[in-house]
């Protein structure tokens, strides 16, 4: 549905988007995840033909966005970050304006607008002025505004920022339902990993204008933590066994025969062992065999936050 090939955007000497290749399939929710200033919004603007790429091509629904933005905008609904409405118009009037810009006949637009306002949970404020709306309401009205043109693809740029947790949940549920019922393709840009993980089928991690990784969450974590998917924390009473080489080195030597251990470190009196498989049993056995006393053993799995930070750290370093 959306295909980006070698997409690059430069502002002077600053490269906002660097050689981006990405394919988004029909009917999937794709999460574009990245910190602020990673180039997510710029990429979205290029998809809509609102900004021309420096090089590379964007095609949405098989149409080149740069050459033919009008056709693309006919099929794509875009909800910008912190969407605004004409404050002195009612919710309904704002929706009807969009509908008219899309050449939807008046009667049809009116019916559709009312249905959509019910759908996004704003049935009571149809005739309330948009200027009186809270941020969350505006975002929901924004979703209705996007849907009124019957899009094939919807692009949501940070749609949940500034909404309370309950509002976020409702918003995400609504997106997931829309995809299920209408087969919409959704591109969801966010810096919030948990929200992305909740609804997205696939995720692309985007740092400094580059796509660091893409795939579903389990495969992403596998890709990143090929050799350190688990962390085992061991509290050990050494009983004076460490010797001259130091405690960490001592433990590393003891654990050396076990395959799959990538690193050993010591922090706050607890050893931290990173390994690719769950090696708790083997590690415990080795420590006990060595004569030291094993006080505690704690297995930790890498959560989403670790995945996220690890990628972003990598991004900042490079």
């Amino acid at each position, binding site marked *: 549905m959306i295909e980006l090939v070698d997409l690059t955007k430069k502002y002077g000497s600053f490269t906002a988007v660097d050689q981006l290749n990405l394919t988004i399939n029909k009917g999937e929710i794709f999460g574009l995840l990245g910190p602020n200033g990673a180039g997510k*919004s710029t990429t979205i*603007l290029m998809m*809509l033909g*609102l*900004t021309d790429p420096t090089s590379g091509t964007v095609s949405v629904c098989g149409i080149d966005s740069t050459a033919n933005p*009008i*056709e693309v*905008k*006919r099929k*794509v*609904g*875009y909800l*910008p*970050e*912190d*969407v*605004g*409405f*004409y*404050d*002195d*118009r*009612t919710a*309904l*009037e704002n929706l*009807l*304006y*969009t509908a*008219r*810009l*899309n*050449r*939807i*006949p*008046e*009667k049809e637009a009116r019916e559709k607008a*009312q249905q959509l306002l*019910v759908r996004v949970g704003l*049935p009571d404020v*149809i*005739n309330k002025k948009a200027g009186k709306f809270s941020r969350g309401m505006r975002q929901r009205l*924004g979703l209705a*505004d996007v849907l009124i*043109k019957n899009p094939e693809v919807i692009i949501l*740029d940070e749609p949940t920022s500034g909404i309370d947790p309950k509002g976020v949940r409702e918003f995400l549920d609504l997106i997931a339902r829309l995809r299920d019922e209408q087969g919409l393709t959704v591109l969801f840009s966010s810096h919030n990993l948990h929200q992305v993980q909740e609804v997205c089928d696939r995720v692309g991690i985007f740092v400094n204008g580059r796509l660091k990784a893409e795939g579903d969450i389990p495969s992403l974590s596998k890709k990143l933590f090929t050799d350190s998917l688990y962390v085992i924390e061991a509290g050990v009473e050494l009983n004076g066994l460490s010797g001259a080489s130091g405690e960490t080195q001592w433990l590393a030597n003891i654990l050396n025969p076990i395959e799959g251990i990538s690193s050993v470190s010591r922090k706050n009196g607890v050893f931290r062992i990173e390994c690719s498989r769950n090696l708790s049993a083997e590690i415990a056995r080795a420590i006990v065999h060595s004569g030291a006393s094993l006080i505690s053993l704690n297995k930790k799995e890498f959560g989403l936050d670790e995945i996220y930070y690890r990628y972003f750290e990598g991004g900042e370093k490079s």
Partner: protein
Amino acid sequence: MKIHHTNASGWLGNSGKISHPFWVIVQKEVADYVRSWRFVILVALIVLTCAGSMYTALTNFSKAIKPNDPEGTFFFLKLFTITDGTLPSFFVFISFLGPLLGISMGFDAINSEQNRGTLSRVMSQPIHRDYLINAKFVAALTVISVLFFALGFLIIGLGLITIGIPPTAEEFLRMIFFLALSIVYVAFWLNLSILFSVKFRQAATSALAGISVWLFFSVFYNLIINLIAKAFSPSPMATEYQVIGYQKMLLNLMRISPSQLFSEGTTTLLMPSVRSLGPLTMEQVQGAIPSPLPLGQSLLLVWPQVTGLLAGTIVCFALSYVAFMRKEIRSR
């Protein structure tokens, strides 16, 4: 849940046919202007001042008509020009308040959309980017035209009732041309402020920029010209040609100001006896019959002024168009 079925809201109209997106924007913008408080205030201001100048014009009407006046046959036009000195006449008011109207209608055309976050939303609809700026211009111009013609015709009507003598066809045409010239003049200021609204992100900055340009031309520019005039004033011994050259230079400097172009244009149109806008030598005047110029000749006389104003308008519009097309549309 039951939804109240609302009737067609006025600003969207309720016609069954699908209009072109461009006209949809124009329609919305016109509605916005007409509903906005600042437009109401300005119109009230203009209507009040016009009523004032009309009142002075009508009360002094009998005194203004002198026997053997070359403009005797054009006394209807005097409605727009005569005054007893307490209040300026109608066309002076227009040349003063017109720019304010233009600036107030354009100064937040683009940047307010950006600040409200509606620009990126509208731009993501299937419309060409230039629709928005063109529609804003067309809408503002429509509103101004309707306002000025309504005002002009009201004055004509009022004059008809009080004086009781209908205007001649030529007088009527001159008034129409005067109104058209006023619209061009306001359009110039409108486009200047649209240009500022594209360039400056804050509406307040662009309003200030527009007003300062207006103040510069209406107050300071004349002061500067006076300074230049003193510095360059020819000696009493100077030849006739030097004096004429000096006068022409001053006049040309004055003509950089759009308000000078406008006032020259309006005086020529509304006072048919004006036969030249520059200095005339005795030889040129000799043998001339002190009669009013026909409309065609008056139009010829003001043609350079009109083209100058139009050119200024078009340059401002072109600049704002280019700036807007190159602008990157980001949310807020």
